[in-house]
């Protein structure tokens, strides 16, 4: 099992988090806090690298203080200069709403800056984010698929080429510099729906699942592996990522306290109010509610459009307890899902910065060394099978 630190570059002052609704007005952004936030985030990334994390990740999000990485490529560029050993994981660009050729150029450049340590996951985005660049939510699945294949082609095509797409047209594409890893860096595709998992398998992408509870993750990875088998290939454990929240404390009792407070401020919930409610976002007043079925909000699944209360995947600390408990939970999770990379966030509303820091340190020292071997055996099996 590999571990990735989800580096959010969160704004360090609580003031803007009290604002209800999305987007958060820029008037809350204070220059000095902005500088401190970026320095803190990069410092965390450096510490995680030294502590043995395998990947340091960042993700594209817009107009909110909790995730200050609207252009994740820029933040990843900064990461390449402070993270010396771990992979730089761009998980990921929202390819449904940006220029795919520009994204391909950024990925290639990040691979260059990191000396061939880049991995990337193509995401569709949450409905509120489609408003940031004015993209029709109904077109985003098709746009994500086309953009992903165009980026893949742009990263690996040795000759200048043109692209006549349904949503994108480029008469001249010739990405320079080319990626360091050939034919291209490891690429993943969002796997939060059955359709997406099928697409990932069909196009030899790895799979990225986020925030679902383990039974649904198992359903998605099971479907993905089945689809891969159908197409004659078998993914390695490290080709399946799971992003979630994790809390470690000295004792289970302390950890239970963290669990009960997590999302107590419902700060992330506010991103689904305000203008974002125009796109039929779910109300996650009770953020701890589990999703009802596999599918994204963009598909109208797990939404409160019918007046009911919706569940949303990122409602809780998926792994939580003392180090022994968390090692056991992760072992069971791996056994059930086959996931080989955990992309972990240690922060979140309701937890103090001290709790998040302690959780991060305990994970690095007491948990990470003990989960390393998970998945190693099946990876060897996959490679042996592939060699035959």
């Amino acid at each position: 099992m590999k571990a990735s630190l989800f580096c959010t570059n969160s704004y360090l002052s609580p003031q803007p988090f009290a604002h209800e609704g999305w987007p958060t007005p820029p008037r809350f952004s204070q220059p000095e806090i902005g500088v401190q936030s970026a320095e803190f985030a990069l410092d965390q990334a450096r510490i995680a690298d030294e502590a043995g994390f395998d990947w340091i990740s960042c993700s594209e999000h817009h107009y909110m203080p909790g995730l200050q990485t609207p252009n994740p490529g820029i933040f990843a560029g900064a990461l390449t200069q402070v993270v010396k050993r771990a992979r730089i994981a761009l998980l990921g660009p929202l390819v449904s709403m940006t220029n795919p050729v520009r994204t391909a150029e950024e990925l290639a450049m990040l691979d260059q800056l990191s000396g061939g340590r880049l991995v990337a996951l193509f995401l569709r985005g949450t409905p509120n984010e489609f408003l940031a660049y004015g993209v029709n939510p109904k077109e985003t699945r098709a746009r994500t698929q086309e953009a992903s294949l165009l980026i893949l082609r742009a990263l690996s095509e040795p000759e200048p080429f043109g692209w006549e797409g349904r949503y994108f047209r480029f008469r001249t594409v010739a990405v320079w510099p080319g990626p360091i890893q050939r034919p291209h860096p490891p690429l993943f595709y969002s796997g939060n729906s059955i359709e997406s998992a099928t697409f990932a398998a069909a196009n030899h992408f790895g799979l990225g699942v986020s925030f679902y509870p383990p039974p649904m993750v198992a359903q998605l990875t099971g479907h993905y592996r089945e689809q891969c088998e159908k197409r004659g290939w078998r993914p390695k454990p490290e080709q399946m990522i799971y992003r979630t929240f994790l809390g470690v404390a000295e004792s289970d009792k302390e950890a239970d306290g963290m669990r009960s407070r997590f999302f107590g401020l419902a700060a992330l919930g506010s991103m689904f109010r305000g203008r974002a409610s125009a796109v039929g976002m779910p109300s996650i007043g009770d953020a701890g509610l589990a999703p009802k079925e596999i599918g994204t909000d963009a598909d109208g699944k797990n939404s409160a459009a019918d007046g009911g209360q919706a569940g949303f995947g990122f409602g809780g600390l998926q792994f939580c307890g003392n180090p022994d408990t968390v090692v056991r939970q992760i072992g069971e999770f791996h056994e059930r899902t086959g996931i080989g990379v955990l992309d972990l966030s240690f922060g979140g509303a309701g937890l103090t910065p001290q709790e998040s820091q302690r959780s991060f340190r305990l994970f690095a020292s007491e948990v990470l060394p003990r989960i390393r071997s998970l998945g190693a055996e099946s990876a060897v099996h996959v490679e042996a099978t592939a060699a035959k």
Partner: protein
Amino acid sequence: MKSASKDLSTGKITEGGSGNAVFLLQRAPNETIVDQLGRRFRVVTIEVGPSADPTDVARTLAEAGARTGIRKYSLVAESDLAPVAIAHAIESADSVETLILIAPQAIRTNGASKDLPLEEIKAPTLVLFGTRDEVIAPETGRIYARRIPCCFYTLVYDAGHDISTDRPQALLSVACDFLDNREKFVVPAGSSAISP
């Protein structure tokens, strides 16, 4: 488009439309493509039939030029008719102004060409492959791009080998731009202003 048909010794030609001449070499006519092209160009559809061999096709092509009296034209060919079109473009370099090869089968997927001196093609050439082509790998387009002196290799997303059936509008869009503007088709001509 108004058209007139003539039976030749080795095939059939249909002519219609007005404007710059386009010779469309096909096994069976695709009405959408012929009709749409005919609204902007003088289209000579050369139908050679499913069993015509390369020698017949070459003869039909030469005969079509003589019968119509057209001295300068663009040449469009699909799939297994591409080798004949390439040979004709080389032999009749003074007549063929631009060449469009749609999912051409002139080079095998392993890179071996069918003894065609692609380097001798003088006309600006647009080579199109569908991203889902299962008859010949779209990556074959790279070889045309390297060997033809003025080649524009373009992928048509979500189309298989039969691009003109799978995504006719995408094909027409890029083909018409190329026929109109040749090498300058890479320069966007439409306005992006929202409220000029």
